[in-house]
């Protein structure tokens, strides 16, 4: 354990130092890394380009000997594969035959019937050739059996004996069958596959020349038939071959033949990748790119997301290149197919570390220096990174000991790749990250300056003058969160470029296009694929004819420069023979006129030397594969062709005619072959296009189905979000674009205690008992209900001083006001922060007031007394400040008497002041509600008052109760007041005149609330106590909520009670909490949730009173509860915000706030959560748990915490902020309010 700890410390210290280094010298380190990447990749230049086409090597025939297995010295000359004997030696006998002179009496069939018929005699000659007791039977490659799947080929391909193919195979090498065949063309073509074919066809195999050049067709203008007899020899006997050549030449001399005969070509075939193999490969690549996409899109909270994603991909890719390069450097040549294992390597190496690094760095506190942030982030993740790497290395090491060569090689690559990836992460990516973070801070600075400059200046007057235009505010439904707000910011050019890149997703598109091109190249280079087809088409359709384009140059990756002779053989022969070229051109030009009399001429040009090059790449592999011989990774040697020229007389042609030949019907179209060629090309193109479109559509559909707008990113992977030290700012970074600017409502002289709103109006009450009414739309102060109206006799000066002193007293949160021994009512869970934790986010903060008096008082006495004795506190404060000479405090006898009583702990408090006509100015407002234009205030003296919000006049008051009203609910025309002694009073507001709408009141906002009655100023309003439930609860009622005709109370006695509003009948008493109730949520849909001091949250069914779910959520009080249709959001004293699934009660995720952050919550829409913090409010995306934005309410955010937060109907929130109110209009891009 000790060793582990020490190791851990050392590792993190080392990472810390490394991070400092990287962040300090970014440019040199990036240069160094790039240099090392290039160095390591340098050996890659020596590797041959990946491709699957065959490669060739040319040697002379004369001094040929079978290459030995152990490679001799001259490695530079011969390729690696040129070892050991070849699979076979291919000897081709190229036969060109023509009937000459051509006779007009001849029919088209005569062009090829008799020339083909001569193949049997030549075959006979070859078979019977014997040179010094060696016959062909002894030398040739003996084949045994065709593959079972090739039944249809059994008739034509040799099944036993020599592998010797010729056109004669169509007729089982029997002349009689040939002669009896009425339709030669049909026999030839019946084996051709229908449709597109990509590999060698049977016709190609048997004729040994490309199908076009055979001349076996009815429209052969040249009237020369070309075919080969292909012999596969298993061993090479130079003398036998030479004698055969001499014999055939002697029998059938070729007049002007200048074919070179001194070179044999060895063709090496690589492992083939057919289309079938390409499909899994493409699949793995698709998966790979999906992986990269899903990984990189997790990068957030950085300056340029795409830049970092690119850096991450570059890191992984270059580490792979480095690993291959290093392995090559140390002599390990990769034998594995690189393209195949590459995706797996990427997946093994992975992008995780990079992402972890990014996340760790961006979650460090922003106020640190960049260097320190990088260093801290690195050292935080050092242990896990090292652990992961060690694990992966171990796994790979285990894989190495399987002793399977392929796995071993893979492991070797993976190890080197992992190490180089680690190196790159540490140097390259960290440095890029540090640059990015630095740029982000610059941009952050840019962002904040205009925001602060744009803050409206504080208004000196209590009332905002009407004529001032309201501050420009974007309409609530059209604001977008991420709107391009760059116009205010003077961004540097490069940043704008980066933004442009990020906006248009250029990097992503480039990558996509690159992928498509790459796949296209893969398909194109596939020997079986498009390329050969296209090459064939091009060579056939080029106007220059065959000689103009040496086809092998464009087709095969040859080894130029290795062997001078090979280049010679590759290029056209040095002595050009212009004659045949001209002749053939001449033929074509003169064709229309002189067709009948043109006599066929047999010419031999250099293009005939290696006619096999024109064949498909799959020609030889296909031929051998029929006999289950694979040419993959092996080679064959092709001997120089033996030219044979046959001239036949017309008479001979006529003699060999089949009786049906003469009345052979001409085929319907004369241009079928050309048309077919064109059609093939178009077919290929159309098919490719179609396949591409289908693929794109399929991917798109899959993407749509798989990812329905949210990507499973909803915070669960990182269950607890750590937040930085800065208040309410996750990762210390909020998006740089801000259109939200809070509207500060100023006027209160002290901290705001109560806040009420009905959507259009806003009422607030401060500690100085001043009530202000604001317009919730514009933020104008409409009415001020002062606290010192009738008490002017008490002295204006005194009143002011009293306010000041009260303020001083209340602003000492750690002072005696809070630290009283009455913790049994509210167990104080104090943090070290100076801010008061708001125990109830939705009702007045009573802590300082409750603490001072009622804790030690028995309820009965509280009942009898007139309520809260505010004067005692004042007196005490004055006594403490008695020495101050500036205080001119006239000691009044009742005051001193009262002080004595309060100090004497057994007070029988008489009403301190005679009840006054309009308002109890001494007792403070503990609860306030606003409906219509009536403000209901509950005072600490137990008095309920109704004020006109517009005129500021007291309309009605009720003094039936004496215990302080702790909570109020105002619904329809009923007011429910919860008192400190646990009783619940139901009042009815009666209006003698019909309701009338006031002009400035808009329509009721949210449909869920019933329209509140509005009262005009002429109405006589009375408020009568209809019912008082004396012992609603055993202890003090802490929460009171009303909705949907129900009143729900929560109390310190651990129970929740549900009352019906109409008849104030108690429906249920809900028991389930083991602590006092601290939070209740009920809404129109009868969802009832309650949270208690025990940290549990219960969801109840209001109709039956049964408990739906019960979850243990917080360590400490649940301070606030809000529900949406799908989830429950709770905040607790443990500074966690938890999001629960409402139906299942499963915690979806939680957000860790910093200590002392406000406990107020509000839900603006289904997916937008707002929380109050220290001097700011934060907006969260509920689906992802992501911080969307943090709005700072003021410049000095120290110590001021948002304790109350109301969500208004018009997508605005209002919150208290010290002695100011903040009206924040929320961009409602996520949901439009209908």
């Amino acid at each position: 354990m000790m060793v582990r700890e020490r190791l851990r410390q050392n590792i993190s210290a080392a990472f810390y130092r490394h991070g400092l280094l990287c962040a300090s010298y970014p440019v040199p380190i990036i240069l160094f890394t790039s240099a090392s990447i290039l160095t390591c990749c340098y050996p890659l230049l020596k590797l041959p380009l990946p491709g699957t086409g065959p490669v060739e090597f040319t040697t002379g025939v004369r001094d040929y000997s079978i290459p030995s297995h152990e490679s001799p010295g001259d490695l530079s000359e011969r390729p690696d594969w040129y070892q050991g004997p070849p699979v076979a030696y291919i000897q081709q006998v190229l036969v060109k035959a023509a009937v000459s002179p051509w006779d007009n009496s001849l029919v088209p069939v005569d062009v090829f019937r008799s020339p083909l018929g001569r193949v049997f005699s030549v075959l006979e000659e070859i078979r019977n050739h014997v040179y010094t007791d060696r016959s062909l039977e002894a030398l040739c490659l003996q084949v045994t059996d065709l593959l079972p799947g090739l039944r249809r080929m059994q008739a034509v391909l040799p099944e036993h004996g020599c592998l010797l193919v010729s056109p004669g195979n169509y007729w089982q090498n029997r002349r009689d069958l040939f002669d009896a065949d009425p339709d030669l063309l049909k026999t030839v073509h019946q084996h051709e596959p229908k449709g597109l074919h990509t590999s060698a066809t049977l016709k190609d195999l048997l004729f040994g020349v490309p199908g076009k050049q055979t001349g076996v067709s009815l429209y052969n203008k040249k009237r020369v038939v070309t075919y080969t007899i292909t012999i596969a020899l298993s061993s090479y006997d130079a003398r036998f071959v030479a004698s055969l050549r001499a014999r055939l030449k002697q029998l059938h001399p070729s007049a002007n033949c200048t074919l070179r005969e001194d070179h044999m070509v060895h063709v090496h075939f690589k492992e083939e990748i057919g289309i079938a193999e390409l499909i899994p490969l493409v699949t793995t690549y698709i998966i790979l790119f999906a992986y990269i996409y899903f990984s990189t899109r997790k990068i957030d909270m950085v300056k340029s997301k795409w830049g970092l994603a690119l850096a991450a991909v570059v890191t992984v890719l270059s580490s792979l290149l480095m690993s291959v390069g290093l392995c090559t450097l140390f002599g390990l040549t990769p034998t594995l197919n690189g393209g195949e294992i590459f995706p797996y390597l990427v997946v093994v190496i992975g992008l995780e570390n990079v992402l972890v690094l990014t996340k760790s760095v961006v979650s460090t506190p922003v106020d640190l220096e960049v260097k320190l942030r990088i260093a801290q982030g690195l050292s935080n993740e050092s242990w896990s990174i090292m652990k992961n790497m060690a694990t992966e290395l171990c796994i790979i090491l285990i894989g190495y000991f399987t002793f399977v060569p392929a796995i071993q090689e893979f492991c070797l690559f993976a190890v080197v790749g992992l190490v180089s990836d680690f190196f790159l992460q540490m140097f390259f990516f960290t440095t890029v990250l540090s640059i990015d973070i630095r740029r982000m801070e610059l941009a952050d600075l840019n962002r904040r300056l205009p925001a602060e400059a744009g803050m409206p200046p504080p208004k000196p007057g209590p009332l905002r003058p009407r004529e001032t235009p309201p501050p420009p505010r974007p309409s609530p439904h059209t604001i977008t969160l991420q709107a391009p707000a760059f116009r205010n910011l003077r961004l540097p050019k490069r940043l704008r470029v980066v933004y442009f890149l990020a906006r248009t997703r250029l990097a992503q598109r480039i990558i996509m296009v690159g992928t498509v091109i790459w796949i296209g190249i893969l398909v194109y280079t596939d020997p079986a694929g498009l390329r050969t087809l296209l090459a064939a088409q091009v060579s056939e359709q080029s106007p220059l004819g065959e000689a103009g384009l040496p086809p092998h140059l464009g087709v095969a990756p040859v080894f130029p420069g290795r062997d001078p002779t090979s280049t010679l053989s590759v290029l056209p022969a040095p002595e050009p023979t212009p004659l045949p070229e001209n002749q053939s051109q001449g033929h074509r030009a003169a064709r229309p006129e002189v067709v009948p009399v043109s006599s066929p001429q047999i010419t031999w040009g250099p293009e005939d030397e290696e006619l096999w090059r024109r064949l498909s790449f799959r020609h030889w592999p296909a031929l051998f594969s029929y006999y289950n011989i694979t040419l993959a990774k092996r080679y064959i040697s092709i001997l120089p062709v033996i030219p044979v020229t046959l001239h036949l007389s017309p008479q001979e042609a006529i003699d060999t005619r089949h009786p049906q030949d003469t009345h052979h019907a001409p085929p319907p179209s004369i241009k079928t072959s050309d048309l077919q060629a064109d059609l093939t090309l178009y077919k290929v193109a159309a098919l490719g296009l179609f396949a591409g479109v289908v693929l794109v559509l399929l991917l798109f559909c899959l993407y749509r189905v798989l990812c329905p707008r949210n990507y499973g990113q909803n915070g669960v992977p990182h269950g607890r979000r750590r937040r930085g030290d800065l208040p309410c700012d996750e990762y210390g970074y909020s998006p740089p674009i801000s259109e939200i600017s809070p509207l500060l409502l100023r006027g209160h002289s002290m901290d705001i205690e109560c806040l009420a709103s009905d959507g259009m109006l806003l009422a607030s009450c401060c500690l100085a008992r001043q009530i202000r009414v604001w317009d919730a739309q514009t933020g104008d102060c409409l009415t001020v209900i002062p606290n010192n109206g009738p008490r002017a006799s008490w002295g204006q000066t005194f009143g002011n001083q009293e306010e000041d002193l009260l303020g001083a007293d209340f602003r000492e949160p750690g002072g005696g006001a809070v630290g009283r021994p009455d913790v049994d009512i509210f167990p104080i869970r104090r943090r070290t922060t100076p801010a008061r934790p708001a125990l109830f986010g939705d009702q007045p903060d009573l802590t300082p007031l409750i603490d001072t008096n009622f804790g030690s008082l028995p309820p009965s006495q509280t009942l009898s007394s007139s309520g809260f004795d505010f004067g005692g506190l004042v007196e005490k404060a004055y006594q403490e400040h008695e020495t101050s000479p500036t205080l001119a405090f006239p000691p009044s006898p009742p005051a001193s008497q009262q002080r004595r009583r309060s100090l004497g702990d057994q007070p029988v408090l008489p009403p301190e002041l005679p009840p006054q006509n309009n308002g109890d100015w001494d007792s403070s407002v503990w609860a306030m509600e606003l409906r219509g234009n009536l403000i209901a205030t509950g005072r600490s003296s137990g008095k309920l008052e109704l004020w006109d919000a517009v005129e500021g006049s007291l309309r009605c008051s009720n003094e039936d109760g004496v215990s302080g009203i702790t909570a109020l609910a105002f619904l329809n025309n009923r007011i429910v007041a919860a008192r400190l002694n646990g009783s619940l009073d139901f009042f009815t507001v009666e209006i003698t005149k019909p309701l009338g709408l006031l002009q400035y009141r808009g329509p009721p906002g949210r449909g869920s609330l019933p329209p509140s009655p509005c009262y005009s100023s002429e109405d006589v309003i009375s408020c009568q106590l209809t019912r008082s439930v004396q012992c609603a609860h055993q202890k003090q009622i802490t929460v009171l909520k009303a909705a949907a005709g129900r009143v729900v109370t929560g109390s310190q006695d651990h129970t929740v009670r549900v009352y019906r509003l109409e008849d104030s009948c108690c429906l249920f008493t809900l028991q389930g909490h083991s602590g006092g109730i601290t939070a209740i949520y009920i809404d129109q849909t009868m969802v009832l949730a309650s949270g208690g001091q025990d940290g549990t949250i219960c969801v109840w069914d209001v109709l039956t009173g049964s408990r739906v779910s019960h979850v243990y959520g917080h360590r400490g009080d649940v301070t606030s509860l809000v529900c949406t249709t799908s989830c429950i959001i709770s905040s607790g004293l443990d500074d966690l915000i938890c999001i629960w699934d409402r139906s299942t009660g499963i915690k979806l995720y939680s957000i860790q706030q910093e200590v002392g952050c406000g406990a107020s919550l509000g839900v603006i829409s289904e997916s937008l959560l707002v929380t109050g913090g220290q001097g700011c409010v934060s907006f969260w995306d509920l689906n992802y748990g992501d911080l969307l934005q943090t709005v700072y309410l003021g410049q000095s955010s120290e110590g001021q915490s948002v304790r109350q937060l109301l969500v208004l109907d018009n997508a605005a929130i209002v919150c208290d902020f010290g002695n100011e109110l903040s009206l924040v209009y929320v961009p409602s891009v996520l949901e439009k309010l209908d």
Partner: protein
Amino acid sequence: MPRLEEHCWSCSCSPSVKTQELSSASWIVCKTGEMMSIITSVLRHAYGSMHSLQSANLMRRGLVLFIVGVVLALVLNLLQIQRNVTLFPEEVLDTLFSSAWWIPLCCGTAAAVVGLLYPCLDHHLGEPHKFKREWASVMRCIAVFVGINHASAKLDFANNVQLSLTLAALSLGLWWTFDRSRSGFGLGLTTAFLATLIAQLLVYNGIYQYTSPDFLYVRSWLPCIFFSGGVTVGNIGRQLAMGSTEKPHND
């Protein structure tokens, strides 16, 4: 991916056997297909009655899983076939699409069942799967699964035991890397067992033939493949389920 590879070597079996046993084979196949579809429909009905809102979700998830199963079956089948039929590339596609048309369907159905079972099991056990729940991880998992199949098809091992052990280790590694839940392990084992049993039965009835059977009638690495396939599909299913439970938040 249960029962994906029961046809791995289908191409290698002789055509005569195939034609002879075609009737019984198709019968079994039809029966299993029916069974699977009945199970899925019952599950869907059960869910639909419970939560009518969730049924659409379930259908969608099932459809996605089915498609994934079909695509993976096609691709991996091709991977397995290749080894023997590389020589006839033009015929691979024919054999793939003609002789074994029912295999992708079966695999798709099985994938849907397993992929829906995983989150269901999680739900009933009351331990939601929290480990690495993100699409990147799922993609990684699929890639590793394809890699395991690739290895089983392409690598030349000295003997079968070595191959099987390697693949078993790889499968366990897959589970440990991407799942790590007991329920996932159990369900993967069950899947492997059942699928192997079915494969044995099918081979016993002569529908298939393995080139070198070393575990009764099938290859000994088959359970490993089934196990890792089950884990992979379960991973996808869980991710889909999680995405869908979050979906109402957006609306």
